[in-house]
């Protein structure tokens, strides 16, 4: 198989790595803390996409067993793991945003470069 056809089959991973790079770029270049955190959330999403894609099975059904007949199911394990991951991501986002609200009340800015002046 050629390089490009492999990339075509692994299309989800291609998009996932692209999202990861976009998130990293946002974290490095944007001075605003909220935008930095948005970048972190994009990176989290990219990891979720990658891990859920690992469990994909071609023509697989959702892993809900209705009858005893043998059917090809999708891998349920990554889905369960990502469910955990999403909740943890929500929790970290809530905590970080509340810290930012407090920071803005104290310093009046969320610009990382200007925040260096506050000691």
């Amino acid at each position, binding site marked *: 198989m050629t*390089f490009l056809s*492999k*990339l075509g*089959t*692994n*299309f*989800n*991973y*291609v998009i996932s*790595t*692209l999202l*990861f*790079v*976009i998130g*990293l*770029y946002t974290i*490095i*270049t944007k001075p605003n803390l909220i935008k930095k955190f948005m970048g972190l959330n994009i990176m989290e999403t990219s990891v979720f996409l990658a891990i859920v*894609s*690992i*469990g*994909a*099975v*071609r023509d*697989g059904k*959702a*892993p*809900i*067993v*209705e009858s005893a007949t043998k059917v*090809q*199911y999708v*891998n*349920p*394990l*990554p*889905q*369960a793991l990502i*469910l*955990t991951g*999403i*909740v*943890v991501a*929500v*929790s*970290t986002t*809530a*905590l970080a*945003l*509340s*810290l930012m*609200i*407090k920071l803005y009340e104290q310093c009046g800015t969320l610009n990382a470069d200007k925040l260096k002046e506050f000691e």
Partner: protein
Amino acid sequence: MNKKVQNYFVLIVMLLCWAVFLFAVAEMPLMGDPGNITNTHVVPRYLEKGVEEGGAPNIVTGIILNYRGYDTSGEVTVIFTALIGVLAVLKRENIKKDKSLVEISPVKTSVIVTTVVKFLTPLIILFAIYMILHGDVSPGGGFQGGAITGGSIIAFTLTFGLLATMRKFRLSIRIPLESSAVLAFIASGLVAMFFGLPFLTFLIPGFGFHTQELIRHALFIIIEIGIGVATGIIFASIFAAMGKVSKE
């Protein structure tokens, strides 16, 4: 070096990173292949015996609540801890002293928005209840239903303001409900310990086959309801703590 040049430099480095990633992606096992190593290791056992051992036709629910019950109890603790952290930083809202940005905004909420939200909120909560209760036989479950409930409460707060919403969800109701997930999990886990079994065992011997199944199902439903209610109320509480503005 000024900012713009710096950003271009970062962009080039990132594109190089992506190129490296692409070579790694091309070497990964092909997506969708049933013979992949990720699909052949533990998963066949889950799919074959999941209904019998896990106790739910929805294998994902079986994994979350039974095979990886400790993981989920930790996760439930994580959202509870996040709420504690948010409240430690921001304090709870005080109905007498605080207002939300919706109430002090000079622009009034349009009639269309208020009508639609008023009409949809009960329906959304009904759907969330369906999702929580049917988590073990269809897609859904406690966390998903809880997130939908939280979303509908947040939408209500955004249109009618913090005051109107928090009068409906009083602190005296919310404080016990926020911890319901952790409590439901620990309570259902402790049931097995009274019979001399390890924590979080749901299949309790000494009863008939059908009674056993019934007890396991009841424990699952208790956990799902606990998780759903707690997730929804925790989201609402976090949003209320963030959305308040003290009245000067």
